């Protein structure tokens, strides 16, 4: 219990520090004092003189919403990954497994190449979200028979539908003639938060945070599922098919909402829960909130790298997370092999 509190406190501090570090850095150098002043100025009644109007504009209107968005996206993706890993009892599960990534990608590419997004820019996140959630519902429907939803069927349906949607997406991309549009789309598919500001944050915050809070409630059920398997959990009173349905729906809504704004970002949902599990153990009562906090910090720092690593070009966020994620997995594999060979 005490250890749980300690882990979460440390992660919260890490998140706060990351947010401050990310808000202090960018292509224009703003001294820390000015950053602090600009942030504190938001509080009504406080008025520090340390920041110029353009510095204030940069920190509060350009950097802050983007950093907060990175935190919410990273936290939601990591939490969803942890939930799905527990639900599928498969440490390789991540939000892509329920078709979110391929659905959102298709929705976004369709919105742009069909011209819908040209007329109304908000069509892009809307289409991404709509297709992403529709895909999960389709997968659920395909895998459910007689009130039961076997996990193997969900996995297979997910694979099949993702492959189909990827094919359609590639088709649309190949048909695109405008090189600039193609570039925009590829950037979206590689993930990124460039140009995202307060309007995007307003769009995403409520569904992402409400959904994440709802997921946290199922920590105990996930513990039962992880420790005892499907039948064991049922014998302890868990209404398994209802649980699966609820978790799938909420995860789809949360992930769909954030991916519609950030594009498809890989590795966060997969590797953050792993890292947290290594440190804090498999108890979902710690694992879930810790994954959210860890994922939030991770993406805030990854976005910081994406913005500041190269002076000429902004790196794609999905590239940064993959570049960090792949070596980490190799490391995990090494440790696991060493362990199994020693035993």
């Amino acid at each position, binding site marked *: 219990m005490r250890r749980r509190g300690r882990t979460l406190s440390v992660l919260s501090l890490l998140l706060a520090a990351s947010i401050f570090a990310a808000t202090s850095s*960018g*292509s*224009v150098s703003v001294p820390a004092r000015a950053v602090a002043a600009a942030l504190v100025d938001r509080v009504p009644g406080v008025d520090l003189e340390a920041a110029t109007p*353009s510095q204030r*504009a*940069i920190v509060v*209107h*350009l*950097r802050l919403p983007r950093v907060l968005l990175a935190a919410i996206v990273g936290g939601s993706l990591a939490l969803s990954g942890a939930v799905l890993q527990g639900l599928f009892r498969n440490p390789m599960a991540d939000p892509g497994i329920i078709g979110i990534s391929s659905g959102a990608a298709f929705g976004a590419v369709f919105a742009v190449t069909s011209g819908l997004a040209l007329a109304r*820019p908000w069509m892009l996140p809307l289409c991404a979200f709509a297709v992403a959630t529709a895909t999960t519902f389709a997968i659920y429907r395909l895998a459910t028979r007689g009130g039961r939803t076997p996990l193997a069927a969900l996995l297979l349906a997910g694979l099949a539908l993702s492959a189909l949607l990827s094919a359609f997406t590639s088709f649309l991309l190949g048909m695109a*003639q*405008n*090189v*600039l549009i193609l*570039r*925009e789309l590829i950037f979206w598919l590689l993930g990124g938060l*460039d*140009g*995202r*500001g*307060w*309007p995007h944050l307003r769009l995403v915050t409520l569904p992402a945070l409400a959904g994440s809070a709802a997921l946290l409630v199922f920590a105990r059920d996930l513990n039962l599922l992880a420790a005892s398997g499907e039948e064991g959990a049922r014998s302890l009173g868990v209404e398994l098919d209802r649980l699966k349905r609820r978790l799938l729906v909420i995860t789809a809504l949360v992930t769909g909402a954030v991916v519609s704004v950030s594009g498809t970002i890989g590795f966060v949902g997969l590797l953050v829960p792993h890292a947290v599990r290594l440190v804090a153990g498999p108890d979902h009562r710690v694992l879930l909130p810790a994954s959210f906090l860890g994922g939030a910090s991770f993406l805030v720092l990854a976005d910081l790298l994406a913005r500041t690593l190269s002076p000429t070009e902004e790196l794609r966020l999905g590239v940064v997370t993959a570049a960090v994620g792949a070596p980490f997995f190799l490391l995990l594999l090494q440790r696991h092999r060493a362990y199994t060979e020693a035993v």
Partner: protein
Amino acid sequence: MKAWVRSVVIVVLAVASAAPVGADPLPRRIVSVNIASDEILVALVPERLIAVSVLADDPEVSAVVREARAIPIRVKADAERIVDLRPDLVVIGGHSFHVASQLRHLGLRVITIEGFESIGWIEQLIRTLGQAAGAQARAEQLLADMRERLRTVEERVATRPRPRVLTYAPSGYTDGRRTILNDVIRAAGGDNIAAALGIVGGKQISLEQVLAADPETIVMSASSRWAPGFHSEFFAHPALRTVSAVRDGRVHLLPGRLMITASHHIVETVEALAPMLHPTAFARAVR
């Protein structure tokens, strides 16, 4: 509605949505983030232009390398950098809509450039930028100069038969109707094959279509930076050797900056292309 009128509407709407209504104070810190506006603004208001895009210094892309030396700062589509310059007018390309909308949210006056459809569109752009920058008189002068030079070329080629011309770029991209190069071909006394084939905008054309159309003249960019080997591959291609333009040695390379310019410098493109299409009409140099 005529294409250029529609593009005018686009440009004007962009301005109207950003500019405050009423008497506009003269902008003193103008930032240009697009090569087309770089070229125009450096001609209209060099004294009040504080930044141009990073492309302005590249001779393969920019027609104003020399003039740009007088402008102190280089900028790209980076919202933070732009805000830090405290501009009172920002001109940016339509494809950077994220940055544009962020800047507008912060209350900055932003003009987005979209369309690139015709020489008439360029004229409208010059007029719009002249108005926004408070340099209407200079803009009108620039336009008058443009028209004069275009008319000179037109007089020389007016009665001549129009050769069939095709522009060709890496990956088989050509310029059809509603492109600036389409107007350039017309003004230089040629007939754009891509437009005749019904192609609209910058689209790909298959080798089969090229062979079937059998252009008399092919125009390509001399710049090979983004597709090295494109020229040698083109000339080595066995099927292309049978095309009239290739057989008769009428494949012309124009400097890259002239192929992509969307400013008043387009006149130079016309002046460079016309003698290539009608060598006898320009036995004596145009200027």
